[in-house]
């Protein structure tokens, strides 16, 4: 059972305080998008063996959403960061690079 630190309230809590919300950094496609774009947005997901970016909500806590960069194989948590962003901040990317040199995920690396 994971421990995550909520970057919004600073609480480090066990997984039962949180709610997993699937993949992070999805781009919303709506009216005007092609069928392929919309399908991609709704259904297509990364399923990596390694570095992954996820959304979590501190539902039994401050109620805020945040993002976590995590290794799906070892469950190592590289960091958590605020959800109001389109891409992982530099310090998170650096933290991942320090542990997983040469990583890439979608168009991030």
């Amino acid at each position: 059972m994971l421990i995550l630190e909520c970057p919004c309230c600073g609480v480090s809590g066990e997984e039962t305080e949180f709610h997993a919300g699937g993949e992070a950094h999805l781009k919303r496609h709506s009216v005007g998008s092609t069928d392929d774009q919309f399908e991609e947005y709704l259904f297509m997901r990364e399923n990596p063996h390694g570095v992954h970016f996820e959304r979590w909500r501190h539902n039994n806590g401050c109620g805020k959403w945040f993002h976590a960069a995590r290794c799906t194989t070892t469950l190592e948590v590289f960091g958590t960061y605020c959800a109001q962003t389109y891409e992982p901040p530099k310090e998170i990317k650096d933290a991942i690079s320090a542990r997983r040199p040469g990583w890439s995920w979608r168009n991030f690396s």
Partner: protein
Amino acid sequence: MFEAVSALQGASFNAGIAEVRELGLRGMITLRGDLTDKKLIKAVKGIAGRIPEPRTVALKDDDGAAWMSPDELLLMVPHADVLSTIETLNASLKGTHFLAANVSDARAVFEVFGPHAREVMAKLAPVDFSPDAFKMGMFRRSRLAQVPAAFWMNEEDAFTVVCFRSVAEYMFDLLSIAAQAGSEVDAL
């Protein structure tokens, strides 16, 4: 005005390793807004004395404010003063983006006290309640068994627990069972 009653009307349990009792109605206001906004800070100071730091509660007797999230405070005032306090807030924050909602009757409030109070809490919440970790002034939102709750210490070995009114009975039963006779852990 009709008498307002709390969910369990002051139920109590004192046959175990800590005492549990439902406290009466408490005036509670959810205030959402920019906690760095000068107007808001001034308004809250007028009501609660000061703005609590993250993860803390600023109380004088039973009144004050608790830090709920980066954009939310829980203001606590006498139950009879809630509506006037909201009016004051609405007036003083006019023109800023905020939300003040009366949640006094949507909550149930409990006290758990006695030398084993920390243990009773540690049986239900995934939180470190050892004296080195959980200190006076700290305010924590988490879960107690299967329901969300917020809690803090009023004084050493006395916890206040706030939960939704609808689960007041569950919470009371839960705390009473966790405080059952013979269940001392002696590990905190």
